[in-house]
């Protein structure tokens, strides 16, 4: 009796807009004076990935904690997999897998014991728990270390074990808070493909990140937040379009010519310059013709270049122009407001 119906339901699902698996309305949370979330809305349709992007302190972890029932919001409502986070938190927990920003693994247990324990607490049953734990250890390249206490794991191994913990129950909704922080490039690509595969199977995922490339690669939809509220929302392409145009990227041979280079670029730039070390990027219009003019002007000022090029905007540029901060590329974060002031004085 059930079988033909399932076929029908599937068909209907394609016709109607996909139902949101995560939906939040004006979530707010404050810690004393600090407003961590300030009326955040978000909606993640089934089978898609939302990238929640924002600088340090933007409120990403707070949002994840609220949606995973770890934290109660001051105001606002949310549902996850159709269950209200405040009215039926237990229902929510049955349907989610969480990997928090800090690896929540037990140091004294082995990798296997950690996953087995989590599986038992999802009530998977003794046998199923064991096989699921072994499966995931294999999948996350931890099979060799499976029976060693986690105390002996490297940071990246702990991170991977924690991620495996989020996948134990094959829950329909995944929350990953900065999942690839601390992973080497190979593990990172591997994780991306696992997440893609899960989402292709119909899971829904909310992932926070500070790596633009990650959002670009993975997210169907990107929500940029700062100070607890939305500052931009769209696909990676839409966001890139917002900041428009091409950029000239220069790399100088010596620091000494930085001021001269800035002075030249300001004349041609249609937006703010971004300086980092000996590199400068400037949004321009006019493409190759403008580039030629800039090069001529730089040459007559005696500025020696190491490298120069035109490039399309990246999500980094989006992030920069929206938040006034540089996204983290490799753990460091630069605040350009000082440089902005310096530039204004120079011009």
């Amino acid at each position: 009796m059930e079988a033909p119906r399932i076929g029908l339901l599937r068909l209907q699902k394609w016709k109607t807009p996909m139902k949101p698996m995560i939906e939040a309305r004006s979530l707010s949370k404050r810690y004393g004076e600090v407003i961590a979330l300030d009326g955040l809305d978000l909606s993640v349709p089934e089978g898609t990935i939302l990238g929640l992007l924002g600088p340090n302190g933007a409120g990403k972890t707070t949002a994840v904690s609220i949606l995973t029932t770890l934290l109660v919001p001051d105001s606002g409502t949310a549902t996850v997999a159709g269950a209200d986070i405040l009215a039926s938190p237990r229902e929510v927990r049955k349907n989610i897998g969480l990997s928090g920003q800090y690896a929540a693994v037990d140091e004294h247990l082995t990798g296997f014991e950690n996953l087995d324990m989590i599986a038992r607490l999802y009530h998977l049953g003794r046998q199923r728990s064991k096989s699921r734990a072994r499966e995931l250890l294999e999948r996350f390249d931890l099979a060799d270390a499976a029976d060693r206490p986690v105390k002996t794991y490297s940071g990246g191994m702990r991170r991977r074990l924690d991620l495996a913990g989020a996948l134990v129950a094959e829950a329909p909704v995944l929350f990953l808070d900065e999942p690839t922080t601390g992973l080497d490039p190979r593990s990172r690509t591997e994780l991306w493909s696992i997440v893609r595969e899960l989402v292709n199977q119909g899971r829904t995922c909310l992932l926070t990140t500070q790596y633009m490339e990650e959002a670009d690669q993975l997210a169907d939809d990107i929500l940029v937040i700062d100070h607890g509220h939305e500052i931009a929302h769209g696909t990676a392409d839409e966001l890139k379009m917002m900041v428009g145009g091409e950029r000239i990227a220069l790399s100088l041979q010596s620091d000494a010519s930085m001021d001269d280079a800035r002075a030249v670029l300001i004349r041609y730039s249609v937006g703010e310059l971004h300086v980092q070390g000996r590199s400068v990027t400037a949004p321009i219009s006019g493409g190759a013709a403008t580039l030629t003019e800039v090069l001529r002007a730089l040459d007559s000022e005696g500025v020696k270049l190491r490298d120069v090029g035109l490039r399309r905007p990246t999500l980094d540029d989006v992030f920069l122009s929206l938040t006034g901060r540089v996204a983290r590329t490799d753990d460091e974060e630069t605040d350009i407001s000082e440089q902005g002031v310096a530039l204004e004085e120079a011009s």
Partner: protein
Amino acid sequence: MDNIKFALADGVVIAKRNVIKIKRVPELLVSVLISPIIFVLLFAYVFGSSIEIQGGSYREFLISGIFAMNLTFSATLTGAGLAEDMQKGIIDRFRSLPMSRSAVVFGRTGSDVIYNVLSLIIMSITGFVVGWRIHNGLGKAILGFGLLLLFAYAMSWIMAYVGLLVPSPEVVSNASFMVIFPLSFIANTFVPAENLPTPLRVFAEWNPVSSVTQASREFFGNIPIGTPDPTAWPLQNPAVYTVIWVAIIIAIFAPLAVRRYKLAPTKS
């Protein structure tokens, strides 16, 4: 019905995890088991040589006091264990799982009974070596040990709540020191309560550490012959009084600890 089944199963999973930790960090177990030996020897030989008990041996009188004091102290482990789980963020993991909301605290207080049983065994052996004996038969002795363990279990719940309240395991140790030290010394643990100055004597007479000590002395037959009957009701009915305390403590602190677990701040 299913809820209770799951709660029990979850509690067992958590307790098993704690037991694995006991095995993996033998240093902790060793220190937990060595300190009672040191206490017994220290008090038996240092105090034992200067305190006279009429009609009996001070060492026999002393051992029940040491039992009670040590079990009171070992409740600190429960608090420290939970504080460590909070600090390491594992509690956040548990709180995101569809498991019973009381399993983590029940599992912890449950598995810590192991520490108490082991340290009781060690203390009894050491006590036996220095001259402590059971005079009232095995049945009563078992009642004595049972009451001591029950009392320790209640203390464990107080410290479970404290452990979830504070930011780190170190704070638990310091906080518990301030409470547990006076509680276990202003009592009849090392000297008869009657010998204390009045305000302290009243405190000692109504202190549950005294009643559990008194009760186990009676069960083990360690009350010196010729000791006048206690005048305070708690010490006249020490077992009943202790059980009342145990019930009150668990009734207050178990719900408090579970509530605190649910609302505990996330690691950030």
